[in-house]
């Protein structure tokens, strides 16, 4: 962010220019991207970004360089800046102006003109992961790592223009083609970042995010919420990331992801006692932080850079783009929106108190959905709420697999100024230097993600919010089931596949054929299984709508649904031998969507299939006629195999 200081002169930002949403803008004014006029973001101008030299090759080291813990500050990613789009967004793609091909935006007249418009460019950048390190070459949205946080509000539609300003030729391990998925938005398929719909450098694409509750057709407006749909379908902590088939892992390791937060009147992004507000800690970057987890290995190079290594797992914990940072907290409640961007590893997070015991984290939302009632997790009275159900069982832990979001509240009011608390993960990373502060007994510096330094609350700091309400929301009752289906996540012949009930071989990702066809407006129960001689954890993600977990299984035997997994979710973590019966609806939109394992190494290796929502019976029939293609092709090959044998 080299331009940050030069452009951000005090008094330059006039109130008149920020009338639409001053809260969001205040954060934005501190950011660097805000100073770029949209006309400067044309692809021609963007070619200038390529002058950032690509990494020189380095031999993968045994371990990353050492670093000093708790040096850098933990901060929330810079907010994206709402700005007019030039040219104006259109229902059909504006091919003449460089938009990539796509289906026309559905419900165009209903949700335009868009209230929020963001112009975001995927481009190279330099990011410093730790002050002991040199700069690191990344691919970030607006060159930032992690990408800028995009804000939305229920009832106010948004259009995000994603530009591909990545280098036209690259020596990095990434692939310069992108398709951006908003995880897990309720919107049209053309804006869903379908893995096969990637576009190359020089193109851009508008994603229309209506920011509505699911149930547009059934509920319409005036249902007590903000805007259209069923307000009980409210979600909050979304994230957006590249979904390019076969290259999701490398492109996300390079940095193509960010947070997307949607507010409504129950969760308005402030702490005032406005009508309907739950008054949760909610000041972005002050008392409400994304907590984006990732692990990487780094490689120092001759030109004083410290480059990322393309690997499925690393030896440094990174939180919001910094290695083992520190955060000063006041004696009050804070909200953290935990997101694991992987690329592959699962975290068991515990809060370690100064005496070495496990502190309480109150889970309020799972995968962006409020729980009906908050669930405290610790190693004492609330140990039973911990969701690490298979080894290693970490008492008091919240287990977070790739792509899961867990919104937690930590109350630092019970601690004294000067106390230090730690966020701990079960795996041990390479640090190379001791902690500058004495650690609580039993805590190894290699397990620490983040240090909290408790200080007294200054007068000007926002006072603590009221106690967390005992009821956060009420879930809708799901309609009767129209269809049952099963997906098995299997390893066959050394290959990750998704099998349907009658498949002999299983399907792999095929962008051209649907593996399952669903009539729009229906409700299905899906059995998701990872129980066939599996030694792998598959965080199974389903695009489009949130599901409810009806049953959980271990090795085919039904077990109670753990309280933390009983809420609405969009990632169902399937550990070895586990299964889940989930139920979800398919409303308001038709099109191509995906179910896949969100371990990015697995999805890049084909553990992903396409399913379609069809708008009417004729379309459904034609889809069903096609959905056997992968099976038929495979059967033909199977029979050939038998014939020869």
């Amino acid at each position: 962010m080299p331009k940050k200081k030069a452009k951000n002169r005090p008094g330059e930002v006039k109130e008149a220019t920020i009338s639409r949403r001053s809260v969001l803008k205040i954060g934005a004014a501190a950011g660097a991207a805000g100073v770029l006029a949209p006309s400067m973001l044309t692809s021609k101008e963007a070619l200038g970004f390529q002058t950032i030299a690509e990494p020189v090759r380095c031999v993968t080291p045994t371990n990353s360089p050492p670093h000093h813990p708790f040096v850098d500050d933990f901060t929330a990613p810079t907010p994206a800046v709402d700005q007019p789009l030039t040219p104006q967004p259109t229902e059909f793609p504006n091919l003449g102006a460089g938009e990539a091909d796509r289906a026309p935006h559905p419900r165009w007249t209903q949700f335009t003109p868009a209230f929020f418009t963001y112009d975001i460019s995927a481009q190279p950048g330099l990011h410093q992961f730790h002050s002991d390190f040199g700069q690191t070459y990344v691919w970030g949205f607006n060159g930032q790592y992690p990408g800028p946080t995009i804000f939305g509000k229920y009832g106010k539609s948004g259009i995000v223009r994603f530009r591909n300003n990545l280098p036209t030729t690259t020596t990095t391990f990434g692939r310069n083609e992108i398709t951006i998925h908003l995880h897990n938005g309720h919107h049209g398929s053309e804006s869903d970042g379908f893995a096969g719909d990637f576009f190359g450098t020089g193109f851009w694409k508008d994603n229309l995010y209506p920011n509505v509750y699911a149930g547009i057709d059934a509920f319409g407006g005036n249902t007590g919420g903000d805007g259209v749909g069923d307000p009980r379908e409210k979600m909050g902590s979304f994230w957006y990331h590249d979904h390019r088939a076969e290259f999701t892992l490398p492109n996300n390791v390079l940095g193509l992801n960010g947070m997307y937060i949607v507010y409504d009147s129950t969760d308005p992004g402030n702490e005032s006692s406005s009508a309907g507000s739950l008054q949760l800690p909610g000041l972005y970057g002050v008392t409400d932080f994304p907590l984006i987890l990732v692990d990487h290995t780094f490689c120092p190079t001759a030109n004083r850079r410290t480059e990322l290594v393309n690997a499925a797992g690393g030896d440094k914990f990174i939180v919001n783009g910094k290695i083992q940072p520190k955060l000063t907290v006041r004696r009050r409640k804070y909200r953290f929106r935990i997101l694991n961007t992987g690329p592959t590893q699962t975290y068991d997070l515990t809060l370690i108190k100064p005496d070495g015991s496990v502190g309480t984290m109150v889970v309020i939302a799972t995968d962006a959905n409020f729980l009906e009632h908050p669930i405290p997790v610790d190693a004492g009275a609330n140990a039973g709420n911990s969701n690490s159900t298979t080894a290693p069982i970490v008492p008091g832990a919240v287990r977070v697999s790739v792509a899961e979001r867990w919104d937690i509240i930590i109350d630092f009011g019970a601690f004294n100024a000067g106390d230090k608390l730690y966020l701990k993960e079960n795996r041990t990373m390479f640090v190379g230097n001791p902690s500058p502060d004495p650690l609580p007994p039993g805590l190894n510096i290699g397990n620490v993600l983040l240090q909290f330094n408790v200080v007294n609350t200054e007068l000007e700091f926002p006072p603590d919010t009221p106690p967390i309400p005992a009821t956060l929301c009420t879930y809708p009752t799901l309609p009767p089931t129209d269809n049952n289906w099963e997906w098995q996540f299997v390893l066959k012949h050394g290959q990750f596949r998704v099998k349907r009930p009658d498949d002999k071989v299983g399907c792999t990702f095929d962008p051209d054929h649907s593996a399952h066809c669903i009539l729009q407006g229906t409700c299905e129960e899906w059995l998701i299984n990872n129980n066939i001689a599996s030694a792998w954890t598959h965080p199974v993600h389903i695009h489009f709508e949130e599901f409810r977990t009806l049953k959980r299984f271990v090795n085919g035997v039904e077990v109670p649904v753990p309280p933390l997994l009983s809420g609405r979710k969009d990632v169902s973590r399937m550990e070895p031998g586990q299964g889940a019966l989930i139920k979800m609806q398919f409303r308001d939109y038709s099109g191509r969507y995906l179910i896949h394992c969100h371990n990015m190494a697995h999805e890049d290796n084909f553990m992903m299939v396409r399913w379609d929502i069809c708008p009417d019976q004729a379309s459904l029939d034609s889809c069903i006629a096609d959905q056997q293609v992968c099976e038929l092709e495979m059967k033909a090959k199977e029979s050939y195999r038998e014939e020869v044998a």
Partner: protein
Amino acid sequence: MDRRELLTKTFEPHPASPGPSRYTNAVLRNQNNEAVKFYDDLIRGKQCVVNFMYAECHGSCPAVTQTLKTIYRQLKDRMCKDLFFYSITTKPEDDTPAALKHYAQARNVDLAGWYFLTGEPDDIETIRFRLFGMDHPAFDSDLTLHSSYLRIINDGRNSWGMAQAFASNRNILRRIAWQDPPKSYAERVVEARARQILIEEEVKKYGYRRDVMS
């Protein structure tokens, strides 16, 4: 790419290609008993599809070979020009060049640009780990686990892809195309316009984009 261009094409590796340090320059022999260096002669600057098999295999191998044969037919214009198939034996002790020649002829796949390769067992094991290794002992030591993967390499753009031989042929073709040499912006605009027409026809017909065309 036009035909004339293909014939005069020189195979330049991408500047970031790891070259022999990843692929090795092991000397292998093809079904015509010609010695070839794995990187310099087979990979360098080229696009290729690599799989592992052995002649006496009656499991997946014949089906995979059959699949590649179909794919070969569809990509005939490019084969041996900028696209190559390499089927490497996992049983080099049994599969001499002559045995592989016999295998290829018996299945009508002794074709230009499709090499059946054998060599020193250690070299082949190394290549197999470098191309298909998942850094996971249980996978990597099991020979049978790699038999139905196709590794798609384009050294000219230093890109890797993969396909499962049991997926639909169209899916495999698409995955090979995903590793094709990069196209200019102008070419991609022309393609986008052509696709857009089909997308809109489909939306009219089915109510959503189905991608059943082409």
